[in-house]
């Protein structure tokens, strides 16, 4: 049977040692008759590798992928280039078939990678300390908020903006629902900036959560907002884009207390949204409230430098209900990929990537400016993402047309606007100004020819509605 080892002889000898007649005897002695399943599980029959590989290949081919189509989708997940060296390393069994490094002596590989990852994250963010990763960007944002609430006992207010990723806010709502905290979502200004948030901060505010560049691709006045928060005694949490740091100022250099990011863009495949990599860094003073695993340096009994999991007294397996979080896994394999990716990038590679994103995004905006049908929404420059309004008010039709022509042209923002299918409550909606709009991301992977093709497909699409 597939991956089983025991031959009939093995089974016989093993049962003899146990002193049982059959495996059923062992099981039935423990599992009461009344709860036993009396039939076989109703699953598809066992399938061999050849047949299953063929079937799954057909299934995979029925999906439009960033390989089969040209991808301009972003919104928190990006089609950045992944060097082959990243896959080479991450496909080594010693990494992907090992577990949490409970025995440091036989886990120095993973532990050193975690320590290097943490160091890279601090270099990237300009903050003092990083954990070894969390589930994803969205849940990491919420963990940062929970951490802020725990740091600031008595303060119950969490302030964020309506141009922070709607799904990230959705998670926040779900978590805060069950605890004693209040979420305030402050409307952005007409250009999609969150400066108004500054006026909402008060002495009840535990933290301010902003995204920079934000969900609609605009930059925020991070330093100003962080300064205002600090003045009120609140912490500032920034959702950042790792690639943007090839050019933009680092969170730590702008007064941010906790920086979180979706690490997918650092060498991790799109994978329909997961597994992804939650990056979290914070100021050193906050370290004992940091959720998740942390690797630290120490020496062994012979004085050799080595690495271990540390500060475990924050964790659930020791502290149980008093832990900083219930998280006991981390995304080591994805953190490894990010570590290899950043090692290959180096400062120059990261900067070059950001520069290519900037130039190609600017070029894409120009290409679209040639059609009266489209309007670029927002007043600021873009790193790699921007919003386009379809004056023909037929975004769904437009994007379907593009997909039929091999282009994933953008993300329809209508469902996220008030009343939309993904905006079940006001706190997670986008401002209504993004109705009839779509979000476009242009990474360094998009060639001029692809951008031209994207522009052509969009500009030549039939308009079903009129202005």
């Amino acid at each position, binding site marked *: 049977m597939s991956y089983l080892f025991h031959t009939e002889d093995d089974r016989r000898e093993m049962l003899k040692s146990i002193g049982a007649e059959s495996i059923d005897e062992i099981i039935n002695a*423990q599992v009461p008759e009344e709860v036993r399943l009396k039939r*076989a599980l109703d699953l598809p029959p066992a399938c061999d590798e050849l047949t299953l590989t063929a079937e799954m290949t057909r299934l995979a081919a029925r999906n439009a992928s960033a390989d089969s189509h040209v991808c301009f989708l972003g919104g928190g997940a990006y089609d950045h280039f992944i060097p082959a060296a990243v896959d080479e390393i991450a496909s080594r069994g010693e990494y992907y078939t090992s577990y949490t490094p409970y025995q440091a002596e036989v886990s120095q590989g993973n532990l050193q990678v975690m320590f290097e990852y943490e160091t890279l994250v601090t270099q990237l963010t300009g903050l003092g300390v990083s954990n070894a990763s969390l589930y994803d960007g969205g*849940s990491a944002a919420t963990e940062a908020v929970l951490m802020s609430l725990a740091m600031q006992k008595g303060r119950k207010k969490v302030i964020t903006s309506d141009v922070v990723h709607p799904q990230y806010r*959705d998670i926040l709502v779900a978590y805060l629902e069950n605890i004693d905290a209040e979420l305030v979502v402050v409307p952005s200004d007409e250009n999609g900036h969150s400066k108004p948030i500054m006026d909402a901060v008060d002495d009840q505010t535990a933290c301010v959560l902003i995204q920079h560049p934000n969900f609609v691709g605009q930059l925020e006045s991070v330093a100003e907002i962080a300064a205002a928060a600090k003045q009120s005694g609140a912490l500032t949490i920034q959702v950042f884009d790792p690639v943007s740091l090839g050019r933009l100022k680092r969170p730590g250099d702008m007064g941010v207390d906790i920086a979180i990011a979706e690490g997918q863009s650092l060498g991790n495949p799109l994978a329909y949204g997961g597994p992804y990599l939650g990056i979290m860094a914070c100021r050193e003073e906050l370290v004992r409230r940091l959720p998740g695993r942390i690797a630290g340096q120490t020496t062994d009994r012979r004085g050799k430098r080595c690495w271990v999991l540390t500060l475990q007294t924050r964790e659930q397996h020791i502290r149980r209900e008093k832990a900083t979080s219930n998280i006991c896994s981390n995304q080591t394999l994805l953190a490894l990929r990010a570590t290899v990716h950043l090692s*290959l990038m180096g400062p120059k590679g990261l900067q070059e990537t950001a520069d290519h994103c900037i130039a190609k995004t600017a070029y894409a905006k120009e290409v679209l400016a040639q059609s009266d049908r489209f309007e670029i929404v927002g007043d600021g420059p873009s790193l790699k993402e921007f919003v386009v309004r379809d004056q023909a008010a037929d975004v769904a039709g437009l994007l379907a047309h593009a997909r039929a022509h091999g282009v994933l042209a953008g993300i329809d923002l209508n469902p996220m606007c008030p009343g939309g299918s993904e905006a079940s409550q006001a706190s997670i909606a986008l401002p209504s100004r993004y109705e009839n709009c779509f979000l476009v991301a242009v990474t360094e992977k998009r060639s001029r020819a692809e951008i031209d093709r994207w522009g052509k497909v969009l500009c030549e699409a039939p308009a079903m509605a009129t202005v």
Partner: protein
Amino acid sequence: QATQLLFELSREGRRAHRLGDLDVPAVDASDLFDSSELAESAPPLPELAEGDVIRHFVGLSTLNMSVDTHFYPLGSCTMKYNPKRNERIASLPGFLNVHPMQDESGLQGLLQLLYELQGMFAEISGLPGVSMQPAAGAHGELTALFVAAAYFREQGSDRNVVLTADSAHGTNPASAQMAGFKTKTVKSNCDGLVDLEDLKAKLDDKTAVFMLTNPNTLGLFDRQIAEINRLVHEAGALIYLDGANMNAILGITRPGDFGADLMHYNPHKTFSGPHGGGGPGAGPICVRDFLTKYLPGPIVTRTENDNATGDEDRYMYHLTRPSEDSIGRVRSFFGNVGVLVRAYIYLRTYGGDGLRHVSEDAVLGANYLLSKVKHFLDVPHGDRCMHEFVASATRLKKEKKLSAMDIAKRILDYGFHAPTVYFPLVVDEAVMVEPTETESKQTLDAFVEALFRITEEGEELIHEAPHSTRISRPDDVTAARRPILKWSDAAGESAS
């Protein structure tokens, strides 16, 4: 040979990744952006050549034990063989390079897979409502408790207590606390099962959920399950099943059939993972009908396709947004799809009958080890178990100053990963062994032989173990007291 850090290998001016010349007009960032927004220089990442990077990380990998290299009987973690076909298939571009915000019409293949997987999870658990969004087991626990909380909230109930077993994983109480519940601990009886008297005493009209692990962390199936089921439900509470130990009961019994109202799976354990050095996992949850509407979404549904041209497009698959009553999201996007795809391939590979054989062989292997180990290590909870068992080194500690930790460290020298030690907390000097179904009798015999030899070895040899690894017995205390959590140029550290 020294194990240098990336940062120590770095040399200014060295490079690996480069992009080509821009094929669009260049833009000077400082023209486009306000200077206050721009960094003065790129982040101070290390500078390396591609050859540096490969040799560094290949070298580090060889310092890990892993399922692919060693027997890894880490109790409660189900370190089974990770099939290579899963890796190959999950890496097909049509699965790997699909964007999470794509339109469902271009995702029919993947959605079909996820739809069928939902059905398989429901069938194996006996619980019809499935959400695959949670990213890990603990995340699934938390999500299930959110669901329970939403349910009681809608009922207008003020039940706010979660009961957990004293043998439970630490995540149980931690998740309960995060979901806004108070926690109380239910004791184990001398058989290692739920102490029914203690359970009765703690069940009241404030009890929301009893979190049960069955088989529990001692590897024992609680034969009082029918009684537990009755007691908890009569008290008006729900039963949550921690699915960490599902590898013992696939096709043998179903949580939904023995009383669980909610549960999570650990596909990275039960459905062959892999574990990825501690992640990623996934934590899909299954719930009873009346709890389905609270699940986070989206969920995959299907309709008949009127324009079908053959078997392939007989159905249309849809991403259905959660209902108004949904707890909302617990993470961004759909879930850990890469992990779920592997679980699907695993389930299709075994089929229903095969899955039962998986559990049977897991149980057989654990009982076989138990039958051998009990001759030289105490096994406090009897000579039968499900997929794992817990021995105790208490006697050895008294007689020879040989602790569970010493055994764990010394077994590394024999080329085996250590069992889990000091868990569950209800067993003193616990040594928790889970062989899984994918180890040969030869390997199990060699492991028993090594374990036995250790009990006969000299104290000093063992207290200084391991001897064959690059490092031995790191100083955890200093690590926690004076944490060094990143490399620092200024520290003038040197490799040793």
